[in-house]
């Protein structure tokens, strides 16, 4: 890559300005709000016509229906920790993920070791993390760190049978696992190996997607990880005659180890 490489846009400013100019011109005529059942919501979501001091229109959004209000129309996220745990487990099983409940890190280590033996894994990829590391001593096969001193090598990762990672949190409402490039060993670990094993504690379970996004913003502040991914079940496709097949390109198997 030469630093002197010419910019790929012949005239970047002009297209940007032309597009924004056309948009502003178009928006001079307001569009009526959609036909919704609950007219009260409209007022709350309306782009304010009051100009803000710094110019432009206001910035409302769905925060009219704040996450704390529970959004009583979306699928339920569970009211108590017990409900959330039950809902999460149920959703994950429906998605054909395998849930393992463990009391301790030691027991979790035995579960992973058993998985490794029964599927004859040769190599397992992992990353440095307080939940992941205790599982390694019991592993009956080679373990490869993706965030070691020698850096991540995608060919080496491709040769691994399974990836062992932690996650940001788990969402009861949808049975999703939120992984990130910062806390879950980068981008490749949770997607390239044939099997993905997630270790988490039950305290990481949140109710809804709204709660998950809120908590993630609060945790990372303005510096969000470069990738945040909601994983909802093992990789799947229905492209052939709309028949469900697991393991299209991502992991065929998803194991969730819940400690606590």
């Amino acid at each position, binding site marked *: 890559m030469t630093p002197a490489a010419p910019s790929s846009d012949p005239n970047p400013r002009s297209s940007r300005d032309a597009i924004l100019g056309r948009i502003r011109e178009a*928006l001079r005529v307001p569009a009526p709000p959609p036909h*919704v059942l609950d007219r009260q919501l409209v007022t709350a979501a309306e*782009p304010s016509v009051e100009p803000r001091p710094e110019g432009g229109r206001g910035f409302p*959004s*769905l925060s009219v229906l704040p996450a704390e209000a529970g959004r009583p129309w979306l*699928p*339920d996220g569970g009211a108590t920790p017990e409900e959330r745990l039950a809902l999460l487990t149920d959703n994950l099983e429906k998605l054909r993920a395998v849930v393992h409940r463990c009391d301790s890190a030691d027991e979790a280590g035995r579960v992973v070791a058993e998985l490794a033996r029964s599927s004859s894994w040769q190599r397992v990829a992992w990353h440095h993390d307080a939940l992941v590391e205790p599982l390694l001593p019991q592993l009956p096969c080679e373990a490869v760190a993706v965030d070691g001193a020698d850096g991540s090598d995608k060919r080496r990762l491709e040769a691994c049978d399974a990836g062992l990672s932690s996650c940001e949190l788990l969402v009861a409402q949808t049975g999703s696992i939120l992984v990130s490039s910062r806390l879950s060993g980068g981008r490749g670990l949770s997607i390239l190996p044939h099997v993905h094993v997630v270790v988490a504690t039950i305290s990481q379970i949140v109710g809804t997607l709204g709660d998950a996004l809120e908590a993630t913003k609060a945790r990372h502040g303005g510096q969000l990880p470069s990738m945040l991914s909601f994983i909802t079940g093992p990789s799947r496709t229905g492209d052939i005659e709309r028949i469900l097949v697991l393991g299209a390109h991502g992991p065929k198997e998803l194991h969730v180890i819940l400690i606590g």
Partner: protein
Amino acid sequence: MTTLEHTAARPAKETDTRPFAETAETGGKATPKRQFLRDAEAHVADTGHRSFVRSALGGYYTSRDTQKARYRDWEHARDAASLAKWSAVNRLDELLEQFASRFEARGGTVHWAANAEEARSIILGLLRKAEAKAIIKSKCMTSEEIHLNAALEEEGYGVVESDLGEFIQQLRGEPPYHFVFPCMHVRRDEISTLFHDNLGSEPTDSPEELTMIARRHMRQLYVNADVGITGANFLVAETGQISITENEGNARLTAALPKMHIALVGIEKVVANLDDLSVLLPMLATAGAGQPMTCYNTLYSGPRQEGECDGPEEMHVVLLDNHRSAILADPEQRDSLHCIRCGACLNVCPIFKNVGGFTYGTTYQGPIGSVITPHLRGLADWNHLSGASSLCGACSDACPVRIDIHHHLLHNRRNAARTAPNWLEKIGHRLFVVVASRPWLFRIAGWIARHTMGLARRLKPPLVREWLASRDLPSPPAESFRTAWRRRQRSLPSPSQGSPA
């Protein structure tokens, strides 16, 4: 016989008949309208194809209903989703600027493309800069819209579609049949033959085994690719992130392993806040594929950051206008930009299910494609799509963001009637008004019709010939409705004699 080659091979002459409504404006050879009529006729006659497509959609209806039932109030969720998109599209300028500045603050680059040509040249420029040798691509309808693959291949770049459906379509040399289910029209034995011929795999009739063949084939391609190209489903202005929804994991791999990630995204994809996705992501999955959530919903805020162990060195977002600002300028149809491309309107559309995806001849098929294509490619040539609707409203009912799709089709018809009136239709309507508003004339016209219907059935004169080719006229009634009514009134007992019960 369900193959589409069969359709394409039909001689043009045989189907070169025009229905009553069409007049002299299509003098030329293969106008989009003629192609539509020809392909529609062929598909409708192909009952094997139709029942295959219907049965492929059968599972979708069941799982969609199961998932919808998990919403405590689906209609209310639709309200929220449509308002989120409405409030974003109506301040698109601010949100795009906000997105661009926040995304660039994290080390990515935003490019603005006014049209398809510009988008292609931006992407080609990036590939040259990266000295790309192998390109992997995940499903991106915007790239179909600008015919990116053809442009890349012309410049000598090999590009592999990684989504299974798109990969199958790429091998078949066909565009997607449905913008969410690209190869839903292809039978497994055809796929088996295709893989056997192209990848040297053993024939099989198991969808599972076929998927694994593609999986094995693709893995090294991900690892070897130096540039990954994706689309995006949402741009989040608040956080400067792009959001990609997929089931297979191919987009995750495309954005993880190559050293450059390019995302090509339409400007209408922006939403204001990250929180908006907590409503839009599950609804996209439920409406589009009957899932609680699509398997991978991933947010990217730039290239690999300090302290992360992998990810691309560079990330570029190409924002594409390509006539979207023209749709924006029409306040009546502006909401067609709210579309989140879930595909639900196609899945429920009786026209789509009968004429099939290719008949539309558009990048975006089905009801929403019929609404926006006239804006993207010109009303004069594409207005016939507004007629490809029974106006039953199934599309509008299915739409998670409450786009009033079937009324927009009606609006397009009105606009076309204003700008390019169909004279034969106009004369017909005038004539009808004259006749229908004069009882004596109406009576005479009725008499003539009753007495010539039988003849028309036998002689099949021009104008009704095509209509009669696949339909039959009922036998003419012996008397007019008015005569029958009068007779009936007379034979009934008069109200004073009848019992009040």
